[in-house]
């Protein structure tokens, strides 16, 4: 039914487009809104409701994005729905977005899509994008003006056809201790050309064990000046040229917008596509990627950084709320006991009742909630129709629609209660737990998870979950409540999800709760140790003077790759050589083989000579011998037999001496063995 409606809507929209063909010529700005983040970070909530419909300060997230797109001058938005697409489409149909003048919202639905890359490929096939478009996900809050960025993009594109994308970035320095930004995303390293603003390097998901960033030497040869940034945040708002879609189609293995697409373009020097950045300074843009960013963005909204998208301005479907002193927003029809204290930066939704002596601060309370007396709520997010009985304590938690907390229950920081969970009397939910009526899906889609790291939400899983979700609303509640009573106290309903992969260790990073002090202290100590290691490595090196520049072997963890390479190379050469000795292979053939090894490992012929010499020595040592003189004889024999091989890599006497020098350490080993 929803699909039919959608089709009808699409038809009318299409009719509208065909009505004035001039629009096509002027290329009205289009946008692709991905109403699925293809991640699992908001589980268990997203098992029942798509992320874009989760309330952010009592308004579904997608409304912030759509309102901004409309204000930014976008004429047509394609909302790509995947997980829970029916819910998204139903919501949009019942909202006012389908009836805006000058702003068309169309939905594209698909169920067998597992990544942003697939989504863009599908959109490309539909052939609906005709010009530059804004690529955004439905969980982005922004109030920036697109005009300047768009104009820059168009001008660049005019000059250089390869400038296919402009990324919006914003200054935000990640904490040096936790290595994550205030939005809870991983620290990001970018290299940008300060003059052209071209993006030259992008590294998120940084490998913490690697202490250095490696810039290709070609990069510096081409750009005499580069700015390396650790203080920028990717807003995940991209202005793209239509080529981007075809690029996704050409490279069918691109899945993730950043990890595959951006990195793919940066590494690919054949096509020469370029990505540029546009930094915003005074306006706001942030994407809600995890619980922490949910918390931070909510606070930013309450503190009006996102103006005009704030609770007391009606931008879409939100009820009128009144801004009072100290950042308190209160909707109408609130029943509040006289003795209840509502602190600063708190939003209270319509029809909520607050009992006596309850204290609420820095929190968002949804509509129709009932809060008993002597309740403490601090830094928490209560959605609609939540019932909190007397004497509960909630600190830094998210509580979804229809949750019931029986008297005296306590939620420790970082807890997430999904829809309709019931917490038993005086039950204490441990920190960072996630509680849902649905059982934790078994990790049967693990291969997919592995393939795209944590950004896939498998289709298999979705279908199964949707199935269970529908049933569960009716039956499972009663069933599970019986089966799992002890888990959530007397009268409790729901499952506490066990924390899989990553473990509790990482939970604090992305939770709504602020990072505990002791964790910070621990981390900063760890950082000291890291630092120490790095310097130790470096100093150990530097004392050896000139060795630094010449030998790969001693360069410590910095040069692990090349070190590995040379080790592998030596092993291969040795194996080749030994085989040659055993099977009496012709010298010329061995030379050929070693040469191919040299090319594949990108080594110099001196390296070859070194490796060959080393293998000869090793062979000599291995050959059974009784005395040192015999060994010497062996060695001499081997060297004379394989003279030609060695000579083919040593063109001059100088080099010969050089190799011997290089291999002096081998000789040391050799002499040791002899003794």
């Amino acid at each position, binding site marked *: 039914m929803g699909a039919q409606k959608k089709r009808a809507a699409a038809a009318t929209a299409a009719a509208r487009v065909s009505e004035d063909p001039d629009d096509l010529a002027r290329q009205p700005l289009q946008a692709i809104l991905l109403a699925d983040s293809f991640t699992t970070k908001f589980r268990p909530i997203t098992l029942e409701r798509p992320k874009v419909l989760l309330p952010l300060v009592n308004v579904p997230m997608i409304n912030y994005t759509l309102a901004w797109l409309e204000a930014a001058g976008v004429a047509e938005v394609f909302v790509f729905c995947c997980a829970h697409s029916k819910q998204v489409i139903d919501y949009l149909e019942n909202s006012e977005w389908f009836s805006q003048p000058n702003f068309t919202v169309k939905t594209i639905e698909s169920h067998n899509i597992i990544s942003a890359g697939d989504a863009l490929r599908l959109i490309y096939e539909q052939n609906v994008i005709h010009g530059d478009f804004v690529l955004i996900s439905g969980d982005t809050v922004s109030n920036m003006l697109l005009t300047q960025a768009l104009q820059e993009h168009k001008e660049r594109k005019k000059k250089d056809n390869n400038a296919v994308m402009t990324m919006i970035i914003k200054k935000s*320095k*990640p904490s*040096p*201790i936790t*290595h994550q930004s205030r939005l809870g995303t991983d*620290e990001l*390293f970018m*290299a940008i050309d*300060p003059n052209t603003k071209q993006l030259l390097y992008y590294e998120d998901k*940084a490998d913490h064990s*690697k*202490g*250095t*960033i*490696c*810039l*290709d*030497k070609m*990069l*510096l*040869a081409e*750009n*005499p*000046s*580069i*700015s*390396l*940034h*650790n*203080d920028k945040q990717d807003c995940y708002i991209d202005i793209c040229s239509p080529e981007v879609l075809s690029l996704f189609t050409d490279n069918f293995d691109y899945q993730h917008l950043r990890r595959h697409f951006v990195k793919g373009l940066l590494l690919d020097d054949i096509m020469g596509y370029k990505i540029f950045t546009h930094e915003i300074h005074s306006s706001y843009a942030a994407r809600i990627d995890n619980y922490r960013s949910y918390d931070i963005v909510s606070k930013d909204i309450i503190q009006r950084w996102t103006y005009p998208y704030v609770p007391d301005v009606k931008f879409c479907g939100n009820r009128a709320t009144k801004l009072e002193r100290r950042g308190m927003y209160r909707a109408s029809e609130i029943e509040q006991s006289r003795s209840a204290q509502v602190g600063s930066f708190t939003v209270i939704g319509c029809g909520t009742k607050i009992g006596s002596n309850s204290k609420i601060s820095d929190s968002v309370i949804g509509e129709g909630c009932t809060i008993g007396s002597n309740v403490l709520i601090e830094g928490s997010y209560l959605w609609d129709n939540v019932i909190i009985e007397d004497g509960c304590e909630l600190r830094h938690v998210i509580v979804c629609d229809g949750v019931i907390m029986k008297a005296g229950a306590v939620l420790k920081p970082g807890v997430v209660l999904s829809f309709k969970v019931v917490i038993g009397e005086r039950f204490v939910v441990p920190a960072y737990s996630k509680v849902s009526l649905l059982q934790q899906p078994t990790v049967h889609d693990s291969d997919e998870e592995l393939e795209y790291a944590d950004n896939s939400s498998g289709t298999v899983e979705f279908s199964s979950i949707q199935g269970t979700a529908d049933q569960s609303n009716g039956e499972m509640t009663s069933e599970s409540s019986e089966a799992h009573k002890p888990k959530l106290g007397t009268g409790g309903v729901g499952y506490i999800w066990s924390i899989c992969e990553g473990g509790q260790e990482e939970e604090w990073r992305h939770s709504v709760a602020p990072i505990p002090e002791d964790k*910070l*202290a621990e981390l*900063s100590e760890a*950082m*000291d140790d*890291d*630092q*120490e290691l*790095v*310097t130790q490595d*470096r*100093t150990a090196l*530097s*004392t*050896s*003077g*000139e060795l*630094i*520049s*010449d030998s790969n072997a001693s360069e410590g963890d*910095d040069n692990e790759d090349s070190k590995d390479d040379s080790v592998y190379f030596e092993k291969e050469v040795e194996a080749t050589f030994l085989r040659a000795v055993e099977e009496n292979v012709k010298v010329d053939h061995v030379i050929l083989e070693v040469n191919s090894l040299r090319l594949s490992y990108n080594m110099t012929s001196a390296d070859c000579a070194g490796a060959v010499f080393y293998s000869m020595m090793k062979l000599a040592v291995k050959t059974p011998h009784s005395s040192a003189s015999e060994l010497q004889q062996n060695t001499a024999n081997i060297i004379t037999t394989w003279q030609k091989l060695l000579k083919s890599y040593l063109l001059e006497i100088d080099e010969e001496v050089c190799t011997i020098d290089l291999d002096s350490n081998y000789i040391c080993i050799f002499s040791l063995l002899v003794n």
Partner: protein
Amino acid sequence: MDFQVVVLAGGTSKKLVPLVSKEVPKALLPVANRPVLSYVLEQLELSNIKDLIVVVEGADTALRVGGWISAAYVDRLHVEVATVPEDVGTAGALRAIAHHLTAKDVLVVSGDLVSDVPPGAVTAAHRRHDAVVTAMICSVPVSGLSEAGSSGAKDKTKKPGRYNIIGMDPTKQFLLHIATGAELEKDTRIRKSILRAVGQMDIRADLMDAHMYAFNRSVLQEVLDQKDKFQSLKQDVLPYLVRSQLKSEILINGAPQGQQAKENGNDKVSYRILANASTPSFHELYALGPNGSAPVRRTHKCCVYIASNSKYCVRLNSIQAFMDINRDVIGEANHLSGYNFSAQNNIIHPSAELGSKTTVGPHCMLGEGSQMGDKCSVKRSVIGRHCRIGSNVKVVNSVVMNHVTIGDGCSIQGSVICSNAQLQERVALKDCQVGQGYVVSAGCEYKGESLARKEK
């Protein structure tokens, strides 16, 4: 000013053979008929620095350099000439003269620097942040005129000159990363820890280390003592200080640092004012404990002073650079030469004699007592003292030192002719270097060769 100045005048650089020899060490190579060392000394004199130590490699060289300095700068500068053994490197040279150093800070200048950047600016930048080291960096010189077409220039145009990769903070005051020599050929590796502390790092490949450093003396000596393998300031000491700046080792061990810490406490206010530090630098922020408590980490600051593009700053460390500097000093950067230019934009010593129809173009210099025959033409060249040049001689883009004899009909392009050399008739040289006292026989033609006596 509590600064000591050390000028590293070096010895006879191998790179500059055949221009240098035992008689003419690198420091005394003529640039517009003045020893190159005089440019550094005069620049220091302008900054009112009159006490200096000139470090020279090898006793012979020391004798010559010392002799020249005492003759030229008597009464003007108080110069101490210290001799160190050859091939000890710049770090080794400082190690050898350590007992001479007493001041709080030491300014180390390379003797082959031809520059009009005031050393005072570097010392001021150093003091401003109470840095451990401050390095002067300048733009990479654009070497060789395109029309000159000399061999050196060709090599360099193939591979645009890259001397250093330098990482700085956005305010361009702190040095965060430096790569020299062989490291340039590899991929650049930037430490994340420092990037995290700073947030933004500007990496430049078009700047180079000009070899003028201000060091904190006690730190310098400590590093030199501890790391006895360090040979070069540029390649060992400076990179070491730069990479250990967030985890300072020097400040932990040395007793002087304890004092300094105390000083820091006392002079906190004045430092604040000096450092212009309404906002503390990233070093200080990094050093703070997790809750902004007392510093828990030891850091030190490495600063840079960037010479502005309008300033001239080139090191005489190759034959190409020698040519370039000679050309620039009488050309674009003629304020450095200290001579007064004629209306034709050239300098012809009053005692020089020119034959009829001989022209000396702009950006040329003709030294004292030189004689030129008829129908000669000199363009963009320096000709030294007491040269005898025959008729029909063409000298273009070249340097001719003192007491050179050039026969009739010679043509010299893009070449260097050292003192006492003799060119017989109709010699044609292009991009050549002719060593001291060498005789080029009549009618020879050379291109891109180095001609010198094989006595050494």
